[in-house]
């Protein structure tokens, strides 16, 4: 076992949590991520491999699915797998084994930062951040959108819980945007 310690995207040793009004904004550093892109004409085999990892159905475009290991669609025949880092540090290797050469797998763990919003009326926050139509953004939705010039994936976990994946190098900027929007909304 190596002896290097990971830090969080905001640069701290522990994840940051902010409370404002009815919303909790928390940094979620604990994801292992891997991208899976089907090779030419291997979409079906790739989808089957993803299903073996996440459960009964692979996510459709604009959605995420899964339980402990989840997946969301990022483009034509492209997905990102996510799982708890503690137990799935080598998610990308597992995915590589599962896809059996039918897809290209790339580790993405370090590429993203994740912030979770929990609370009621999250639409009031999100409508200040990105053009997602919150009326049709239901549990299971996953949409890529631009938040203050940053390209992010926004996942609706439940009505009162949203996850945002943004570029890790801009975690400080993204966190500032989220916190500012929360303070403006409530």
């Amino acid at each position, binding site marked *: 076992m*190596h002896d290097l310690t990971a830090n969080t995207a905001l640069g701290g040793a522990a994840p940051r949590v902010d409370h404002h009004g009815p919303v909790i904004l928390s940094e979620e550093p604990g994801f292992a991520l891997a991208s899976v892109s*089907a090779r030419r004409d291997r979409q079906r085999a790739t989808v089957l491999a993803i299903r073996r990892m996440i459960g009964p159905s692979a996510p459709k475009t604009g959605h995420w699915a899964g339980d402990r290991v989840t997946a969301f669609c990022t483009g034509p025949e492209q997905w990102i797998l996510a799982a708890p880092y503690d137990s799935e540090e080598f998610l990308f290797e597992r995915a590589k084994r599962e896809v059996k050469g039918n897809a*290209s797998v790339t580790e993405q763990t370090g590429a*993203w930062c994740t912030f979770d919003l929990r609370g009621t009326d999250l639409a009031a926050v999100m409508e200040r951040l990105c053009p997602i139509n*919150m009326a049709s953004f239901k549990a299971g939705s996953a949409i890529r959108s631009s938040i203050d010039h940053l390209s992010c994936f926004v996942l609706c976990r439940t009505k009162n819980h949203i996850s945002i994946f943004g570029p890790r190098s801009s975690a400080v900027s993204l966190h500032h945007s989220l916190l500012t929007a929360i303070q*403006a909304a409530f």
Partner: protein
Amino acid sequence: MSQINRLVGGQVDRDQTLNFTFDGKPYQGHAGDTLASALLANGVRLMARSFKYHRPRGVLTAGSEEPNAMFELRDGARREPNTRATTSELFDGLIAKSQNKIGSLSFDFMAINDQFSNFLTAGFYYKTFMWPAAFWEKVYEPIIRRAAGLGSISLQDDPDDYDRGFLHCDLLIIGAGPAGLAAALTAGRAGAQVILADEDFTLGGRLNSERLNFADQSGSDWAVQTLAELVGLPNVRVMARTTVLGAFDHGIYGALERVSDHLLQPAPGKPRQMLWRIYAKGSLLCAGATERPIAFENNDRPGIMLAGAMRSYANRWAVTPANEVAVFTNNDDGHRTATDLHAKGVSIAAVIDIRPDAPQSQHYEVIAGGQVINSRGRLGLKSIDIALPGGDIRRLSCGALGVSGGWNPNVHLTSHHRGRPEWMPKIAAFGPPAEGPAGLRIAGAAKGDLSTAGALRGGAEQAHGWLKDLGFTPTTLDLPETEDAHISITPFWAVKGCKRAWLDQQNDVTVKDVELAHKENFISVEHLKRYTTLGMATDQGKTSNMGGLAIMAELTGKAIPEVGTTIFRPPYTPTAIGAFAGRDQGKKFRPTRRTPSHVWAEEQGAVFVEVGMWLRAQWFPKEGETDWRQSVAREVLATRKSVGICDVTTLGKIDVQGADAAIFLNKIYCNGFAKLAIGKTRYGLMLREDGIAMDDGTAARLAADHFVVTTTTANAVSVFRHMEFARQCLWPNLDVQLISTTEAWAQYAVAGPNARQLLQKVVDPEFDLSNDSFPFMACANITVCGGLRARLFRISFSGELAYEIAVPTPYGDAMIRRLMQAGIEFDATPYGTEALGVMRIEKGHAAGSELNGTTTALNLGMARMVSKAKDSIGSTLSERSGLNGEDALKLVGLRPVNFSDPIPAGSHLMRKGDPVDAAHDQGYVTSACFSPNLGHAIALALVTSGDSRMGEILRLVSPLTGFDHDVEVVSAHFIDPEGERLRA
């Protein structure tokens, strides 16, 4: 008590008294007042000076069309010039100042301009002030500039925040008057997602300005009741203080919400204003209509206002501009003003109606067939002159005059897509164009339905239509019965023979100016507008355009629709620049990207520099270093002597996988990649299709079907886009998958003679780093620090024995600390972008300054890399003769003849003895630095036929920065030209 002109009733909250000042004098008003209504309540008629002639002016309107009553609102850094009193909600502590005057409002020194009005007519700039030639800029223009403009800004940074946001709806309803409310109720009850937006703070539109009976309640009570229902519907969003400012493509609307303008200052964390981008499947314009004045001599005195506005002040705000008023009208609507004010106890001097058959009143005098031909009163109206039907002139004293020339539908948004408004003879006004923005329908007065009942009906019907089209099942509203007056209007624009009769009150455009434009043949409406500046003021011509067109029509003997009208452009009302910018201001203009070693570098006291979005350490000053050059020289020397470490995470990294990955790279790079061995890295040059160098970098082959490509920091995004273009559009059948991994890996360059020894301390022992097993340009997946996955590349930008080592980004901070700790015994030195730049110039590596969008492979000395044996992007067009001339620029090195001379980048090069001019230019310096290893300045330059001019002495000139001395053309490889160090 002090509010001498306050009447009974109205919608102000008399329990809440608000204090404010105007030009330093304290006043009081009530909650629900606007600044205009509060000033009128206090008997203030004189509020402003006009733009050009500095004429005394009062309030003309009661809404956003106001041309006169504009103030500098608030003070200090929050000072807002040109703010309309008619839309400024009164708050406690409001400070307002009059603007565009020298001296006081009642004695403005600039009013002298009014005496020179013959000289300052339309187009006066163009015909005068030319002679003598030097005088325009030195004498005339400065005077004009000083006199011009309206309000002044604070010159301080705006202290408030702005937000932007996004909303979606089935139906956007613009305007919450009778039509908008009926539409919203219809759509809201049917379950559609509805946004109802109105610029006012009290919704209801004209329902609040009129005395109307809606069955057994008043119109304003019906509005209150309807709004209460709408606010209770979860699918309806009612947005007060929100102006829909523009109709953009495909159902996108811009809207400004004034979140905090009615407060002394925004609450903590809250924006002052918010710009919404609204995505609407359907939209309905219910923006009502704007009343227009009639032009007559001296029609701009304080106290002369639109009749409908006078009614608004009386009914909604319980205010009259004077206790004796008159009305001048060409239509029935003007009579309502007299009736309503009379009912409030205001004395009506007379109603002057141009129509001989004007309706009579039993309460006040009506002069049928009369015309107001002049007015008197220096700082406020005292009397008017009336031409009686028989030809006699009668002087009538009054403190205010309401003028009604008819109503113009507010069609602005319907012509935002360049549709031209169409003439509606029935109401003698321009209505919406036949071809408006797709998806925008119109109801109510905006469509020319000027009666209240017509507006209610129209709103409900249009909503009904939209609901059906959008797949909803609408129910029919039970609309209350109300006023449904027939429109009777006799078009009348200006009293015959009037000259100094104002059309555009803000820009001081008079009837005479239109006549002058006509005389000088500026008769097309577009020319008329530009020549006279009619309608180009901050009120955007809302009350003025129509009169100008009508007079031009008369002068040219054409009908008004033949003369045509100009179109309207966004925004509907002037909108704060800050609101369009939202939060992206100051340091938050763009997001920041931080490297994995950022926190550590901060601890070291690094100086950072912006490189695109990234912040990179530029150098690491040490105690005692007083000049950045000292730090950089130390970092360079230490690296070349022992070992240096630099964060190179910012280079773009693209994972290229798939069975055809090598074939793909062969097409992207001008040089070959098909035969690159696994475990090897190769330098690659990418061309644009026109043969110009686009970017360079390396591709490392980690497996037969897996490469990692690097790009320059600056081009990471565009190269990825270019590769996606090639993959999807040019070669869609190749089996290639791309994903950016720039963010995924923290990558450090470890360079210098002791690089290998240092790395051996962190790389796990099973990986052999010896020169034999891991030679120059090798690459491998390895582990470090006891098992952490990592990638190692033996590549060198510095020219030293060098590696780049990458670990997953979350470990980047730990890794830099570990490397520095392991490097203590070698005096390992962190270096920044400056030292990086020095070392690459010393080594002669081309970078962004050389790949500057004008250079080819040939210019860069890499012509042989462009393979002729295969097709690659740019290979064919790089063969064009013009790119391969004998005299093409070539990349060379330069050193000063006198070693103490600098070689500044951007300098140009001349042949010795040639004239110093553009025709004799031999090239220019692209990159330069002081080389601490050589002890003098060195540079890279692009020189005509440079590769065959080694040893030639050229004259370096930089007239801009004052350099002129000799330099020698040398090889660009200043250090270790044979490359022994990097292969060591």
